Every structure is written in C-alpha cells, then in structure tokens.
C-alpha cells in the first residue's frame, strides 16, 4: 500500500465530499415546497364526458381492466325535420379504479373520440383504498387541470 498515487487518491476522495458539503443540497422539502412535474407527466386521467360515445375501447384495452363503464341506448330527436329519432349511447357510469391503474396510457391513446386526457396532478392519495375509485364527476373535475399539449421539438413532423 505504498505509493503517492494511493495517498493522492485518498485525498481526492476527501476533497469530493468536502466540496459537495459546501455546494448545497438538492432537497425539495415536500410538502412545504413543491416541484411542478413536467407537462406530460402521467398523473391522473381526466374524462370529457360530452365526447364519450360508450364505445368501450378503453375498458377493453386496459391491461388491468380497471375502467368500469355502463351505458344505455336512448332515443334523441332527429337532426332534421321528418327524420327518424336517432339512437345514441348515453353514459351512466364511468369509473377508473386508481388502485389498479398502471398509468400506462393505453386508454388515452386508444380513445377514438378524444374523451380521455392526461393531467400531471398527483396529489390525490386517500386514506381508504375504496376512495381511489374515481367516478364520472370526479374525472370530469380533473379536466380543469389538463394542460395544453406542448409544442414539439424542431424537426418533428407537423400534425395535419
């Protein structure tokens, strides 16, 4: 264990820790200080009820089967005079169980009518697991926290 190399190596190590001590810390003292997550962060899923046509694609594609949807058919007045009443799907129940949700985003991606959106909100933990089942109204409230989609990096293909 002789040699100046080893001794200087030991001192270099001490220097690293000393410098880090003086440089300050990286701790954010949650909950007194909060960091904002990035815009695309997958925090919670919000539902825009008027767009939903109860096609059940999201419930089918969910890997955990955590979306519970119930709907019924009802007749609406025709669009033009003299036409037949049209049948539309009306949404009765749309629950997402966040105790099961894997936050994968397949439901948001697969929805053909843009009824589901990601929001970076994450502070919704509950003392009881049953309260993690968010119903239609609560999912509608999350819509207020949905951010605008970000502008894309240079070189990305513009959406037509």
């Amino acid at each position, binding site marked *: 264990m002789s040699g100046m190399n080893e001794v200087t190596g*030991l001192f270099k190590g001490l220097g690293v820790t000393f410098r880090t001590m003086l440089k300050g810390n990286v701790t954010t003292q949650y909950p007194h200080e909060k960091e904002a997550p*990035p815009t695309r962060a997958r925090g919670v899923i919000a539902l825009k009820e008027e767009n939903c046509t109860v096609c059940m694609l999201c419930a089918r594609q969910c890997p955990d089967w955590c979306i519970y949807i119930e709907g019924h058919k009802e007749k609406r007045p025709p669009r033009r005079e003299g036409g037949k009443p049209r049948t539309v799907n009306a949404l009765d129940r749309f629950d997402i169980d966040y105790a099961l949700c894997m936050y994968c985003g397949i439901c948001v991606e697969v929805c053909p009518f843009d009824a589901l959106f990601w929001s970076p909100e994450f502070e919704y933990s509950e003392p009881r697991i049953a309260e993690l089942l968010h119903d239609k109204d609560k999912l509608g409230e999350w819509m207020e926290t949905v951010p605008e989609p970000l502008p894309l990096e240079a070189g990305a293909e513009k959406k037509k």
Partner: protein
Amino acid sequence: MTAVTDRQRMAYIATQASEARVNVELQTEDMTLNLGPQHPATHGTLRVVAKLNGEQVIDADVVCGYMHRGYEKLTEVRTYPQVTTLINRIDWLSSFANEVPFILAAEKLMDIEAPPRAQYIRTMFFEMARIANIGLFLGEMALQVGALTPAFYAFRDREFVLNQIEAATGGRFHPNYDRIGGLKEDLPKGWVAETQAVMKRLREFCDELEGLVAGNVIFENRCRGVGVIPAEVGKAYGVSGANIRASGVDWDLRRDEPSPLVWKDLDWKVWTHPDGDSFARYWVRLQEVREATLMVDQMLEGLPAGPIQAKVPRIIKVPAGEAWVHTDNPLGEMGFYIVSQGGLGPFRCKIRSASFNNVSVLPWLLRGTYVPDIITILASLYFILGDIDR
C-alpha cells in the same frame, strides 16, 4: 488472459473432497450461512446458501424465484400494446431498454420499419436507460463495499436523466414509449438543449466517482483479484454485458448484431478489461456510462427530421411466424423470442434476461472466497431481481 486463481483451484478441490466426504461421514465442521431473501446486500429477494469453513466459502447455492411474476404467461393473454406496458417492469431500472427487443421482434414479424427519426430517438432513450441504470450501479456498488456517500451522488445525478425521460414520455421509470412502427409522440420543444446540459452534468458525475471510488485505494484492495471470472467460464455460463467484457471478451451486440437502431452510425468504442475481477467490472461500467453520454450527444446533434411513426393499422395484428431479437441491455444481453399465430397478442413469448445467466455463475465463483467477498462479488455482478425471476 484471466487466470483462475490458486485459491479458487484449491477451493474447488476442497469442495469435491467435502462433497465426497458427505456420503461417508457426518459433516461436523461446516457452518451454513443463509444470505436469506431479505438482506441488504442482495438487490432484492435473492437467496444465497453458503457452506462456510470458518470464513471461507466451501460451497454456495443460489435460490431465486422469490419474485417470479409469470411474465411469459402474462404475455399470452394480452395484446401487443398491453405487453409493451408490462415488460417495462422486467428490469425496472433500465426503463426503456426493456421495450426495445420486444418491439423490434414484432416489427420484424410485421415487416415494418420505423422512420429514421424514431430510430434515433429510440437509440437515445436506450442509452439514457443505460446511463440511469449503470449510473446507479456505480454509486451502489460503493455502498455495498462500505462507502455511504457515492450512492447518494448516484441517486442525485440519476434524477436529471429521469427528468428528461419524464419530460418526453410522461413516466420516469416506466416510459411505455415504444410502439410498433415508431414511438408514441415526438419530443417537446427545448428537450434537445436540456438533454445536452444533462449529459454534460453526467460526465462530471463520472469524473467525480472516478476520483471518489475507483481511485480509492481501499476500494481497489477490496475489489482487485476478487471474483475473477475467466473468459471461458463466463462464456460457458452465458454471462453477458459488462461482466463478460470485463473478462477481456470483446463482444457487444450493439456493434456485432445488425439492428435497425442507429449504433452503426455513431462513433463509439467498446470497453474491455483483461482482469475479470470485481474492479474490472466496476471500471468497465464507469467507462460505458461515459461512452453512453458521448453517444447521446452525437445523436442529439444528428437528429434527423421527419415523422415519428410509420403507417400502421389501427388494430395491430401481427402475422404468424417466429422472431428472435436480442440487444445489449444495460444489464447484459436481453432477448425476446415471439411466436405469433396472427392474433392480437403474441401466442408465446420467451424472455431471455441477462441477470439469470449472470447469477448462475455464482456457485462456481463463490467457492474459495471469504464472506466479505461474497458481498463484493454480488455487488459487482449487478443483477436486478425482476430480471432474474421475471
């Protein structure tokens, strides 16, 4: 290049003798040490049953399977996008790198090629997964050997990479970003400049750790000559990744295996080390992290413009066939063998994970070592339990 040490040779003979004795007389002198499933030194629920003679290991047996989640069965009843979500969680530290071989195998079966911009971004995220995973290893092996501080530095600097991954994909650990035909969505504005700053920060981190850990004489004395894996033994057991490169074998799937990802377009180097001991494995990984940051820089500069996803049908049905794709993941060689029968999901998936083979060399390796060296060897082989057990 690497020689089996005398100690290992003598210990091997002693083990054979002790095993022979078991059939003849009662074992009276050996103590069985159970590094049980719950233990701070094994990264997760791995069990090593070691028979000791004083402080020296006579025989060691590795019991894994405490974290088996049945991945291969799970993939049989799920569609391709659902499987992509699940396999993020096999090796949970190298987030994006788990999805890549699966998606590439599915693309091979569908005969689809992702556009160049998508391939560049895929390779970038793959290398960033390597930086996040192996960066943590650099701090964490020092923790196993006794130094408390480098682990905190590793966690602190890993956050920068995870923030970049989250800014683009929405998920820090499980990005779920790869899709058949390309990627889910393009990068947000300003991401390239931020990532260049992060890569510079990580190079400083590598230099910091080189001074604090690799240059530390105590660390060197704990690791040099400990756990030597000769190249032939490593190849026979299927050890892969930095472990085999540290034994002098110049083999890297990124360079040697043709792949749609863009490693062949970059200027980079494969790091090897002739010794094959724990220090060599640490050193090779340190160089690999630095190399990965340089690769990401090259890719950021040369990022081509264009679409992010090729034309794929809305409902993905992969035609019947079988495909095998393997890549050099951060932990080693990971591969997916997909058998498709034309359905919405794979008929059968075989997952070749790196850590399972890396850990299988332990019974051979641990013979003749001392008890503190078991910890050093476990730390330097670097496995993730999710990767061993799937």
